[in-house]
């Protein structure tokens, strides 16, 4: 909530010596497919701009020549040339935009696509670290900025530089002394612009990061709306919002101050020298070294150059912002996706027989520590060795913080074990690609997430080639068939973010159906029945038992009723397997298990009120 706490939200932003050019060059692979059109457009723009420069010359020729001489034919010719130049310029302008319109929209889309693809494949640990708002601001605001830059910034940078160069050529050709006067301020201008660029880019980056933080606060205030409503309002959230948006405004004002400075320089400096050139020119005209017409043309040309020179101010700013946007974009894209096993190993394992004799699920000396945890902290899982026999259902029981959910996350390789082996039917999961591992293991999470899709599609996500019958069976197992039938459009009803919101119990049942629909060899369930009422739970359990018969399953259980599903129980305690046995054995022999499964007040229903707060409270993390 405190923005200072959340603002290093671009966690990997390194202190780097950055270069705008180097940053922007990284866009090349994305621009590459559109290169012909982009550069043609720039070339066309240069030609069009030259035509713009030619106009005053034609005008001068007309005024000095045919009009002054009263040469009708010459006037008409001049008019036609003027018309032709103007029309050509217009067509070229249109052509330039037409050339880049679709390709650049495509560049933006492609970049967004790569970002999205990359994000989906980055490890869970990355997502734990990065707030959604920061990712989102990169996928939208930054990319829009980049398209703007490619469409206008880059083109005009080329065009205006070219215009300025050509214009100076023309000026020098018209009168080299006057021209030289105008060349004088170029060096100080460049120096000042470079200085400006350095300071501006730092501020621009800060503004973009603050935007990302603001997006994060906005997102949370919407996701957490129920909590906020329940308490009236979330004042520190509102304060963070106010603070962040205030900070953003301050940063933008800082940007504006820098801009104001550079505009002052860019506007006034060339103009001063132009004034000097005028004075010089007038005295030359007075001395007869220069015709009045030439001086007029010279001044006209110089004034045509005014806009390209002025525009350098905002073009530089745009370049800077584009460069920081590129940096921000590549901060995500540069994060490596963990390697998949090389082809040969995967081939070998794929060749391994899917058929019996299976070995079930075996964990050997598995250790897990969060990759970013300091090395002196104890590992979350510390040497887990566990064997779930083929077809067996094992319940995983343990106090809060004992590592159950982490252990489950290791199986489909949502996290990678720090050391140790996990094998599925004898195949080391580390030798399989993640997709293959996840194909073999079906999962239902404690927090059941449905995607924006129909009910049927959501369930069928669990099994690639599951058919209607499998779908019906899965819905029956999870006791979801009844309510699904009653939905407005049955299986076709849209759910998830964009659709009908279902209750927690309904979502959990659909998530369970999704886990069992593909008849997976391995099933991993994280407290799959927690949100169900007792009746439904009993019915689901009965149906689930049939499914579990042929499946190797690991089920996290909190309630004795869920444990009843399992053949054996493993007790997890402080990251280690403390005991393995049947429910009855453990209940008899293991004090911790007894405590976890039969909190006395729960069994001896006669004790109405649990001890009030004065009594000894067991903090969950301590009880492990």
């Amino acid at each position, binding site marked *: 909530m405190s923005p200072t706490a*959340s603002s290093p939200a671009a966690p990997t932003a390194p202190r780097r010596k950055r270069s705008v050019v180097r940053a922007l060059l990284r866009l090349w692979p994305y621009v590459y497919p559109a290169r012909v059109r982009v550069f043609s457009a720039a070339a066309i723009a240069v030609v069009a701009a030259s035509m713009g420069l030619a106009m005053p010359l034609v*005008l001068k020729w*007309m005024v000095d020549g045919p*009009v002054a001489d009263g040469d009708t034919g010459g006037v008409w010719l001049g008019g036609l040339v003027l018309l032709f*130049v103007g*029309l050509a*310029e217009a067509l070229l*302008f249109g052509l330039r*935009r037409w050339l880049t319109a*679709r390709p650049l929209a*495509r560049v*933006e889309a492609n970049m967004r696509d790569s970002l999205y693809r990359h994000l989906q*494949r980055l490890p869970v640990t990355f997502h734990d670290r990065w707030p*959604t708002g920061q990712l989102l601001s990169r*996928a939208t605001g930054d990319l829009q900025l980049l*398209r703007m830059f490619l469409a206008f910034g880059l083109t005009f940078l080329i065009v205006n530089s070219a215009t300025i160069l050509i214009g100076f050529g023309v000026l020098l050709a018209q009168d080299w002394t006057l021209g030289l006067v105008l060349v004088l301020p170029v060096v100080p201008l460049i120096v000042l612009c470079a200085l400006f660029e350095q300071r501006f880019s730092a501020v621009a980056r800060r503004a973009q990061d603050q935007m990302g933080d603001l997006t994060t606060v906005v*997102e*949370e*205030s*919407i*996701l957490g*709306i*129920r*909590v906020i409503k*329940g*308490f009236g*309002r979330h004042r520190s959230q509102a304060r963070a919002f106010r603070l962040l948006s205030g900070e953003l405004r301050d940063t*933008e004002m800082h940007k504006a101050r820098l801009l104001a400075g550079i*505009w*002052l320089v860019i*506007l*006034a400096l060339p*103009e*001063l020298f132009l*004034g000097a050139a005028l*004075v010089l020119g007038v005295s030359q005209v*007075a001395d007869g070294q220069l015709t009045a017409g030439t001086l007029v043309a010279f*001044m006209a040309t110089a004034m045509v150059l005014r806009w390209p020179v002025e525009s350098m101010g905002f073009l530089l700013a745009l370049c800077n912002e584009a460069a920081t946007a590129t940096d921000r974009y590549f901060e995500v894209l540069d994060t490596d996706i963990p390697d998949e096993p090389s082809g040969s190993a995967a081939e070998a394992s794929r060749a391994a027989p899917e058929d019996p004799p299976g070995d079930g699920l075996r964990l050997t000396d598995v250790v897990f520590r969060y990759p970013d945890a300091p090395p002196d902290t104890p590992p979350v899982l510390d040497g887990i060795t566990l064997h779930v026999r083929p077809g067996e259902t094992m319940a995983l029981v343990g106090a809060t*913080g004992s590592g159950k959910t982490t252990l489950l996350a290791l199986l489909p390789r*949502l996290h990678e074990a720090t050391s140790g082996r996990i094998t599925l039917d004898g195949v080391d999961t580390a030798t399989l690609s993640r997709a293959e591992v996840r194909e073999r293991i079906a999962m239902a*999470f404690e927090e059941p*997430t449905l*995607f924006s899709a129909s009910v049927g599609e959501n369930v069928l*996500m669990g099994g690639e080639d599951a058919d209607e019958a499998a779908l019906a069976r899965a819905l029956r197992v999870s006791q979801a068939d*009844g309510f699904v039938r009653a939905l407005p459009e049955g299986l076709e009803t849209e759910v998830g973010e964009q659709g009908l919101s279902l*209750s927690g119990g*309904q979502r959990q049942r659909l998530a369970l159906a999704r886990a069992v629909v593909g008849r997976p060899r391995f099933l991993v369930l994280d407290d799959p029945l*927690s*949100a169900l*009422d007792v009746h439904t739970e009993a019915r689901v359990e009965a149906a689930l038992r049939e499914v579990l018969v042929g499946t190797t399953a690991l089920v996290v259980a909190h*309630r004795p009723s869920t444990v009843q599903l399992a053949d054996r129980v493993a007790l997890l305690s402080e990251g280690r397997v403390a005991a393995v046995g049947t429910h009855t054995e453990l209940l008899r022999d293991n004090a911790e298990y007894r405590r976890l*499964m039969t*909190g006395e007040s*729960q069994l001896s229903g006669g004790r109405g009120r*649990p001890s009030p*707060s004065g009594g000894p*409270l*067991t903090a*969950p993390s*301590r009880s492990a």
Partner: protein
Amino acid sequence: MTTSVTGQDTDHDDERRPDDAPLADGPDEPIEPIEPVGSSDDYTDDRLPTPKGASRRLLLSLLRPHRARVALAAVLLLAQQAAVQAVPLLVAYAIDSGVPALRDDDNGPLIAVAVAYLLCALGAGVLQSSFILVSARVNQSVLLDLRGRIYRHAQALSLDFHDRYTSGRLISRSTSDVQSLRELLNEGLQEMLLILVSVTYIGGLLFYLDVGLGAAALVSLVPLALVVRSYRRRSAEKFNERSTAIAAVIVKFTETVNGIRPVKAFRREKANDASFDRLNRHHERLNGDTIMEMCRFVLFTRLIGAVAVASIVLWGAQRVRAGDMELGALAAGALYIRRLYDPLDRFAMLLNSYQAAVASLHKISGLLGQRPDVPEPRDPAPLPERPTERPGREVVFDDVRFAYRTGGDVLPRFRLTLAAGETTALVGATGAGKSTLAKLLARFYDPTEGRVLLDDTDLRRLTTTELRRGVVMVTQEAFLFSGTIAENIALGKPDATREEIEAAARAIGAHDFIEELPDGYDTDVRKRGGRISAGQRQLVAFARVLLANPAVVILDEATSSLDIPGERAVQDAMVTVLRDRTALVIAHRLSTVEIADRVLVMERGRVVEDGTPADLVAGTGHFSELHRAWRESLV
């Protein structure tokens, strides 16, 4: 933290959700009608009813407080343009008067030109800088205001609205759509004034040079205006579609990122790639469309400009020949006419950002136009002082009836009094009306008929602040906001001291686990090591209530089960929270029902059983049946 977007609302809206889990009504209960707030198509298409001209009104209302600054900015820009546009006049003067004077050895006019030029150059620079600063202040204040309005409005809108509008769209409104306005403002004010000023100046100068030239230039603006109109009409729809398309992209993006674990576990990557690609390509096409419209526009305006310049120059040349016009006037006029069309390109860009911003503002004003279902009172009343000798406050549902606007009673007329300090458990199947009852008390809804009274004060007469001082609702989800644990607890009382926060955590039994976190109370819940379990989250949620210290607490008990020690910690904490308050608990656990003073069993919107837990267990109603099943499940 990976709270999924879809995983947010658990059971709060069960009234409107069909479910097959009746406790006593047979397998398939009739479905409650789903109440449309707008027609559901409006939501799907991302179109909220927006009156005509709403976006312009919104823009004006945003600018109005800054009109002095806007005026100042305009004056600065006018002055700046005066300085810039004076230059050709200086050139003319220098040639016409300076040169002859110089030939007569009179430096005066030339010195005057030099000084004037110096002033113009410096003036142009300084005025431009000041303009940038003044207009930046306006722009940033407007954006700050708009972001704040969206934020506050989103907070004020009902949960219903949030369920339907979806978080992704709201996020899109407050980011992408605000960004469009930002782009307009950044360049827009300046460009608009610049164009206006330069067109006025040049037009004026042309008239000054020669009335005919001026009139001709004016006439050439007519076809331009037609092109502008056609562009605006054509592009408005495209921009609107584009804004909807980017919102869809954002929705998909956030859904994926927030649900990354299941995405990976179910190997949704490829399927997501495909559907994201589809949305993204759709946006790409519309994006391209808007650029193509712009391309058309630029082409036409440039063509008109080219024809106009050529014809006016030709016409001028004829007039010079005929002796109607000075040669000098034509020379200067030709240059000016050329410059009259110079800002066209910039005008196109301005119009482009304007259209994009209008489309976005249209969507934003649609959002801002949604009225909160529970308005603030016009004539607020304070809650009466709480007598010290009795805990909590009395709650009366006074002949309350609740129905959706589409008809269909959810709660038929009823009267119910919750005695001060008493804990009441609400029990019943999904869809029985428990949540609606609770939400009426929390004033998430207002009753269709009747009143909900808190110590004889109608809830509708309390301000939100006053209401939440009296009534707090704890929902099932224990959402943690980014920030520290302490900040998350302080949600209940923002100005709480660290001692108060710790005392609340201690009383609730959360102190020990918090102390064990890497940075104790200052642990950032988004950082590694700050992740806390479901049970611990519930404790944090309870600590919030304790700190808020309301007279009435509504608790929607979490359904998800904890391990039994965790469960016991939560139960103990709950007893602490409920003590000395009037409490309404939507109960899912037998142990919770057992600590209640009174149990209400609800069925189809009616209270069918009412009594102490012991009485009801002893009876033969639904509750005793339920109780038996519960007991069995615990063995």
